[in-house]
């Protein structure tokens, strides 16, 4: 019969804490959210010796218990609340051997709360290379704890760690620092006012208000005669605490750690000289970006085609196998394509996050942030906005969530608001078909295809629009700039495949779950609206047969006419016709209007909707293209899809905020409906105006 204990993994960022979590829990982990805030909650479990089960919570990385962001707040909230069901029975502080001094600050704070704490020194495999040696026994003695050297890379030390966890009750809980040393007089008063409370815990509760935000607990009731300290005094005392702790740590480390500077090898600075060089740094970065995009385009084509074919086959199969009727049609023509619309983007998104994870794991990403920060700031963004903006080319949903590590609220908000302008994968099918229709298939200088160039221009347009909007927003939004920028520049290291895999799976899940449900729901609604209609709709067959009785049409052609007529008179057809006056100045007709409306489910639905509208049986691009090329503009009598209307359509898709799933995520990340609503209206207006101008100028 297994007993269960709670284990919390805490540590500085970049110590490989996540790797430790992955090693301990394997695939037995799940990611959720803390209620009400946008911080990830990672939980898993691990089976320990002697039938014990450990529930492991991977907490956000932090440098100390003095929180200055939501992430860090989660850590202290948990540690101060014994009644929380996740409150740990034992804490593992993951430290990395190179920054031990700084890691120990957090360690001593946690220990002082009286919670059994184990010190796990990670990256132990690097010790020989860095010529660092540690006297474990002595360190254990001085810190009054148990230490284990682990390497998540080489997978060593974990059995020992599990043993230590199992024997957690043997750990000493003596504090490292005597809290009163911070300020004897003040703490004396505290002790008198709150005789039954642990002093250090009390101190942390008081200082939390100063740091970040009010804790989720009852406000502290000071006895009426207690003279509370001013905020600046409290800050001064916090500083003193930090200094005292470091003094303590320095003393200990002097006697227990030896770094032989002479023998330490140093590839790091050589790499940095090139990678963040004033010219080479940028050239290398942009080359890497180009390579990544190229790879994603090329590689994802095969799985995407495969998925496309499979789902089309599945739809057919359903139509044939299930009894004929409306529901079967709903499944085959609404649900299956809806699902396909989500699944088909998984390859592209997974590949992009594969590359981004690799860049992050190696430590290169922080160099990119370093290179780009100054430039980004000119536009109201942060160096850390690079990852969201680049990720946006796959899907805005995980991209927007990646903005969480931006410290300044204003910079983060602006990043979130402009990221949807980058060309996401869903826009691609729309771009491709319009380009192939209206851009001539020529080559400039024999090398550059005009069509390829147009595509590239559209991508550039997306980025430029994002940057330019950020600039405007920076000037318009009256929010104070806060938060202080710091980015740790970890040493370069080889990425751990396991971490990358888990990361890619997580990010892809975000897209599938975040967008999937919404896209599916909208697909169903749209299908129903396109398959039912009032009045004339229900007499389609009769009306069409009458109309075409004089023409000698084949059964197929008649069926196609019927389908087209039905669509025109369905609910969505009526909606399309209603908005036709609005979109005609853009060069569109009601059919395109319908496609625009249906794109709100997912942009790529545009192509499928057009296939239905032009009553094409298969989804073959050639056939759709030919059909579209033959469409005549009812007003002008000239081809509908010409250069002017094509450009107009491209511009509309480039700017319009059609993705409902993205709106939902913006709401989640900004915790308010104000921003997504505002985003929707302004972007769609810009799209309209841009389309309008383009069409009117070019026609």
């Amino acid at each position, binding site marked *: 019969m297994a007993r269960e204990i709670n284990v919390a993994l805490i540590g500085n960022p970049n110590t490989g804490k996540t790797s430790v979590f992955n090693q301990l829990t394997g695939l037995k982990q799940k990611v959720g959210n803390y209620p*009400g*805030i*946008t911080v990830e909650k990672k939980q898993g479990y691990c089976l320990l010796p002697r039938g014990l089960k450990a529930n492991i919570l991977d907490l956000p990385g932090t440098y100390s218990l003095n929180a200055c*962001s*939501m992430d860090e*707040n989660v850590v202290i909230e948990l540690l101060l609340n014994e009644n929380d069901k996740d409150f740990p029975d034992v804490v593992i502080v993951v430290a990395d051997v190179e920054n031990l001094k700084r890691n120990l600050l957090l360690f001593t704070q946690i220990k002082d709360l009286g919670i059994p704490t184990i010190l796990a020194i990670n990256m132990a495999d690097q010790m020989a290379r860095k010529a660092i040696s540690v006297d474990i026994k002595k360190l254990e003695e001085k810190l009054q704890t148990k230490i284990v050297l682990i390497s998540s890379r080489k997978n060593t030390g974990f059995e020992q760690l599990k043993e230590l966890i199992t024997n957690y009750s043997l750990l000493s809980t003596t504090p490292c620092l005597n809290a009163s040393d911070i300020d004897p007089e003040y703490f004396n008063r505290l002790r008198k006012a709150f005789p039954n409370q642990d002093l250090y815990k009390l101190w942390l509760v008081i200082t939390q208000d100063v740091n*970040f*935000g*009010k*804790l*989720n607990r009852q406000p502290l009731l000071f006895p009426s005669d207690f003279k509370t300290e001013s905020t600046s005094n409290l800050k001064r005392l916090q500083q003193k605490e930090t200094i005292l702790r470091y003094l303590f740590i320095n003393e200990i480390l002097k006697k227990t750690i030896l770094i032989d500077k002479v023998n330490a090898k140093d590839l790091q600075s050589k790499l940095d000289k090139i990678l963040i060089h004033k010219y080479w740094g940028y050239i290398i970065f942009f080359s890497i970006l180009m390579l990544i995009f190229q790879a994603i385009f090329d590689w994802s084509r095969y799985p995407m085609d495969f998925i496309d074919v499979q789902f089309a086959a599945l739809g057919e199969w359903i139509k044939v196998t299930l*009894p004929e*009727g*409306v*529901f*079967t049609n*709903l499944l085959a023509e609404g649900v299956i394509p809806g699902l396909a619309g989500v699944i088909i983007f998984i390859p592209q998104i997974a590949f992009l996050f594969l590359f981004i994870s690799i860049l992050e794991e190696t430590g290169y990403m922080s160099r990119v942030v370093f290179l780009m920060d100054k430039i980004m700031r000119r536009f109201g963004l942060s160096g850390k906005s690079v990852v969201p903006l680049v990720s946006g080319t796959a899907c805005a949903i995980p991209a927007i969530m990646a903005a*969480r590590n931006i410290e300044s*609220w204003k910079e*983060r*908000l602006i990043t979130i608001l402009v990221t949807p302008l980058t060309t996401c994968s869903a826009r691609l099918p729309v771009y491709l078909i319009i380009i192939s229709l209206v851009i001539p298939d020529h080559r400039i200088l024999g090398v550059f295809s005009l069509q390829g160039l147009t595509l590239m221009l559209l991508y550039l347009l997306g980025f430029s629009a994002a940057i330019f909007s950020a600039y405007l927003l920076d000037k318009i939004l009256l*929010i*104070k700039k*806060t938060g202080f920028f710091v980015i740790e520049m970890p040493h370069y290291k080889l990425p751990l495949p396991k971490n990358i895999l888990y990361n890619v799976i997580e990010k892809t899940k975000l897209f599938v779950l975040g967008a999937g*449900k*919404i896209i*599916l*729901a*909208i697909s*169903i*609604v749209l299908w*129903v609206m396109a398959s039912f209609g009032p009045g004339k709709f229900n007499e389609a067959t009769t009306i069409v047969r009458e109309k075409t009785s004089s023409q000698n049409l084949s059964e197929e052609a008649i069926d196609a006419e019927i389908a087209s007529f039905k669509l025109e008179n369905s609910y969505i057809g009526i909606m399309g016709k209603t908005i036709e006056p609005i979109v005609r100045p853009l060069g569109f007709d009601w059919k395109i209007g319908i496609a625009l409306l249906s794109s709100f489910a997912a942009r790529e639905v545009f192509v499928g909707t057009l296939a239905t509208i032009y009553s094409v049986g298969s989804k073959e691009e050639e056939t759709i293209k030919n059909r579209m090329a033959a469409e005549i503009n009812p007003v002008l009598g000239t081809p509908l899809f010409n250069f002017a209307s094509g450009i107009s359509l491209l511009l509309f898709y480039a700017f319009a905020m059609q993705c*409902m799933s993205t*709106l*939902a995520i913006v*709401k989640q990340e*900004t*915790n*308010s*409906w104000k921003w997504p609503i505002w985003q929707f209206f302004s972007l769609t207006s810009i799209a309209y105006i841009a389309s309008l101008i383009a069409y009117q100028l070019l026609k």
Partner: protein
Amino acid sequence: MQIVLVILIFCLAAGYLLKKFIWYPIIEMQQKKKGKTTTCGKNNCGCH
């Protein structure tokens, strides 16, 4: 029979969307008018 299923699925889908995009925002607007109930950091309360 089939039409019943269709109507059912349609209501589920439409209901989900309405709930997510119309109902929740309304509730939140009301909550905001009454005053914040969730704790957050200072900073314009974008809750980051």
